[in-house]
């Protein structure tokens, strides 16, 4: 399966080039929240996208009918399709496809949180009759995928994965299966999230999940560091164009990397805490390898879930050690969340893009802010600076509340 187009929408940059340049430079996209006054919250920073104008991608009427998360999804999808060399409005023609051969799978952890909060306020203050009739269609998480099919005319399988912070990777994995199994010839797949809202921040703070390093936003996300104190919430989207290698070659498309396998598992352990023995994470990475026909020794890079929470980073490290044994110490593992923050349901989409670019350019993005490693986190996390290494295959991990685990396996594209 070929990855032929990629559209990241993040606080580090909108579009592949600014996003990837920022990751290679080790820049942080974290700053103080401006969409509301965060002063009374313990966590006041985020990977917030400050200069995004949805009317660059949509007409004003459609913009008004959509939640911010759908705006991000449309922007990321348009960028990905353009990157794949598909002219806007002529995607199916260029691909020479019947509409039902084109699929869309978009994951989201929460969906239209902004809409839910603002309309709940309307309900409380003014009663039911003033609640916006678009509340439900704006709020439901599947609407990003629904809108993309309406806008693009893709009438094939259309799905939404809702598996918390694994939603983006699950969406790409399901897209991979749809194309592999012949249900579609092309799939637009990825994740999206827009949950930097008062209720979401309050709720994550209440769980003690978010960092409180408010005075130093750019160094607050510090995966695997001994002083990490929670994740930094972020928003955005990451969408990918997936098509068969044969189809991509026939139309002369650029191939960034091969999406070679997908693994899923469940911790069956706890609603939010990872299994301290990391059984679910080991299982899903192993499944990804198996489905890709890869052996552990083929893997040269792991894009970690690496949230910068005390639990995740320790348990993910253990999982990598259990799967790879002694070799774990010589495999570069990095967390791009150190720069992007945690995009929740969009994380898998954005990180699949980072992983594909690492394979395409032979440059591994770093884990920034890793200054004093946690003694239990003792792998090679590519600290500080990007590293030039030609790698043959890589994994991208995503783990979500509920114990949902997803892992994507990719191979560097070497041609046929």
């Amino acid at each position, binding site marked *: 399966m070929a990855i032929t187009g990629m559209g990241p929408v993040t606080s580090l940059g909108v579009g592949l080039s600014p996003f990837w340049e920022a990751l290679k430079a080790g820049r942080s996209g974290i700053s103080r929240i401006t969409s509301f006054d965060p002063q009374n919250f313990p966590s006041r920073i985020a990977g917030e996208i400050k200069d995004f104008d949805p009317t660059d991608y949509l007409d004003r*009427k459609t*913009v*008004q009918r959509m939640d911010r998360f759908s705006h991000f999804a449309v922007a990321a999808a348009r960028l990905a399709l353009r990157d794949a060399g598909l002219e806007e409005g002529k995607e199916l023609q260029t691909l020479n496809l019947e509409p039902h051969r084109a699929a869309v799978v978009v994951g989201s952890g929460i969906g239209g949180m902004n809409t839910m909060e603002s309309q709940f306020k309307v309900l409380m203050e003014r009663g039911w009759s*003033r609640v*916006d*009739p678009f509340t439900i*269609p704006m709020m439901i998480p599947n609407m990003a995928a629904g809108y993309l099919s309406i806008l693009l005319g893709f009438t094939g399988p259309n799905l939404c994965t809702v598996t918390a912070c694994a939603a983006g990777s699950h969406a790409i994995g399901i897209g991979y299966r749809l194309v592999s199994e012949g249900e579609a010839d092309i799939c637009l797949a990825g994740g999206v999230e827009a949950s930097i809202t008062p209720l979401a921040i309050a709720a994550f703070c209440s769980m003690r999940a978010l960092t409180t390093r408010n005075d130093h936003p750019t160094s607050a996300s510090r995966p695997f560091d001994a002083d990490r104190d929670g994740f930094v919430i972020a928003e955005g989207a990451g969408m990918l164009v997936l098509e068969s290698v044969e189809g991509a070659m026939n139309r002369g498309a650029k191939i960034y990397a091969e999406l070679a396998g997908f693994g899923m598992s469940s911790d069956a352990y706890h609603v939010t805490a990872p299994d301290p023995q990391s059984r679910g994470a080991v299982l899903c990475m192993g499944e990804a390898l198996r489905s890709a026909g890869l052996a552990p020794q083929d893997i040269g890079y792991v894009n970690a879930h690496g949230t910068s929470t005390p639990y995740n980073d320790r348990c993910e490290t253990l999982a990598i050690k259990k799967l790879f044994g002694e070799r774990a110490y010589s495999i570069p593992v990095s967390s791009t969340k150190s720069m992007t923050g945690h995009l929740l349901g969009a994380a898998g989409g954005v990180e699949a893009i980072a992983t594909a670019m690492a394979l395409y350019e032979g440059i591994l993005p770093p884990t920034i802010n890793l200054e004093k490693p946690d003694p239990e986190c003792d792998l090679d996390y590519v600290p500080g600076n990007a590293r030039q290494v030609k790698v043959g295959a890589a994994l991208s991990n995503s783990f979500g509340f509920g114990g949902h685990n997803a892992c994507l396996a990719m191979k560097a594209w070497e041609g046929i």
Partner: protein
Amino acid sequence: MDEQAIFERVRAILEERLAVPQDGITWDSLLKEDLEVDSLDLVNLSMVVEDEYGIDILDGEAEDIRTVGDVVRLIKNSLLSRDGEAK
């Protein structure tokens, strides 16, 4: 209130709230066919109009609306009956 003033206001609301370009809106414009105002937009339009004019539009009344002129007449009649009741 004169109908032309209500028409101008409805036209402005259609532009502000439903992103319908003002210059394409005439008295006889069909909401659905010409202006792409769907049933949910119509609910939105009713809410704004109710708040602005202090009237109640029943769901059954809104269902009969086809043109911009129908909206204007509905508002005018609602205002008249409201003021009639007040007297």
